[in-house]
């Protein structure tokens, strides 16, 4: 009901014919789509590589932060500072700072490819979030699990690897997938640095034809990836709940 009222309101508004022509032009959509799709492949590539980097870096940071050994104290501080900074600064700023700041240093051997720099910026930002997700998972495992592992003669590292981490990772898969979705969208921020990814391509087409429909094409492509991912999250979460409710004493 609300939706149809909203639709009626929009369709009867004075500016609707104008909006329809500049945003929902079927011909412009068809013209722009192949180029935007081309750009979108770059998004996918960035996304996959960055996601892998995020999963690894985030895990390392989480392991350092949840370590107890006194010798690790400086590393714990470092990891805490890292997560504080990169979670606290907007992703768009990190992309700017790394994308424009690092090449400006004119250091040899440092990558200057905007795709690489943008990817690094995204990885650093998202790994800070994912590290906290992992850490929450590690902290949620009952200390009795570690006691049992140690009492059986496993080393502290073996206890983490074979007992705590497998359970922790399983528990945080739903929130991790949510972060995947957010990252997938934020890949568009790399466009600030110039690479021709979907959003950038759509923007260029839009400004050359004075028609915003190409942006809609980009939006459709993003949805084509994020909506299935959201459904996967739902399914994994539901299965998880089912498994846990079937479980005996916790």
């Amino acid at each position, binding site marked *: 009901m609300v939706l149809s009222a909203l639709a009626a309101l929009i369709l009867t508004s004075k500016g609707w014919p104008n909006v329809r022509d500049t945003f929902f032009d079927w011909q412009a959509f068809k013209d722009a789509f192949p180029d935007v799709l081309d750009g979108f492949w770059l998004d996918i590539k960035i996304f996959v590589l960055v996601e892998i980097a995020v999963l690894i870096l985030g895990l390392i940071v989480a392991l350092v932060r949840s370590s107890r050994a006194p010798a690790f104290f400086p590393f714990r501080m470092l990891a805490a500072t890292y997560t504080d900074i990169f979670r606290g600064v907007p992703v768009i700023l990190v992309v700017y700072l790394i994308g424009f700041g690092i090449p400006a240093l004119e250091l040899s051997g440092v990558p200057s490819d905007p795709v690489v720099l943008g990817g690094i910026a995204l990885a650093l930002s998202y790994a800070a979030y994912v590290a906290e997700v992992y850490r929450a998972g590690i902290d949620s495992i*009952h200390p009795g699990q570690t*006691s049992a592992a140690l*009492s059986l*003669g496993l080393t502290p590292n073996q206890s983490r690897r074979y*007992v705590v981490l497998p359970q922790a990772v399983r528990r945080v898969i739903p929130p991790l997938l949510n972060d995947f979705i957010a990252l997938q969208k934020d890949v568009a921020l790399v466009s600030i640095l110039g690479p021709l990814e979907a959003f950038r391509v759509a923007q260029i087409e839009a400004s050359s034809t004075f028609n915003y429909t190409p942006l809609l094409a980009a939006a459709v492509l993003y949805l084509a990836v994020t909506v299935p991912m959201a459904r996967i999250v739902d399914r994994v979460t539901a299965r998880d709940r089912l498994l846990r409710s079937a479980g005996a*004493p916790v």
Partner: protein
Amino acid sequence: MSAAAPVLEVQGVTKAYGGVAVLRGVDLAVREHEAVALIGASGSGKSTLLRCIDLLEEIDDGDVLLDGEVITDPSVDPVEARRRLAMVFQAFNLFPHLTVLQNVLLAPSRAHGMQRDEATESARELLARFGLGERDGDYPDRLSGGQQQRVALVRALATRPRALLLDEITSALDPELVGEVLEVVRELKSEGMTMLIATHEMGFARDVADEICFLHEGRIIERGGPARVLSEPERPETQRFLRRLLSAGRV
């Protein structure tokens, strides 16, 4: 038996958590093939003592000796010492992401350097012996509490420990499941397993233990043969503790 050197020895062990003294100087010895039962109210320090012996907690003062070696010495690798002991917990602490067989196999194959085939064979044998042969592919949450605790016992035995530390292993069980777990411990006792058993089951302690130690506010204030300690306790604290259990129908 009295000639045998103690497998486990605790000398003057103290432990405090944030200024609260839990153990105030505990002395204890468990000889080979002996079972010593630790009794005492909740909060008297039974679990803490077992955790200190298994080096899961650091003690503040005193020594823990295993086969005459001071394992609480800073130069001793705690992992190596723990490999010679095994503990079973009140809450089972099975690994929920591993099957019964994997639970039992993890330590022998990863920590004790046993060949996988050999470890698997002896794990299956142990599981079968304690009536769990059919369940080796199941995950722990499919098992009853009694079955889970028997798996935990098998998991501990699979590491071939010098001594077993049992921390109120029946306290989390429904009453009708207690018997099957205690049966396993009785069988282990008859085979000569050396054990230190924290328990609230006085009837069981009377049957199985060679010695009973009553722990009160972090000290063992009475000890002796089970018949003597349980039937004619000398200390008023022991008498009060046993009376309370009696009125709760637990003796």
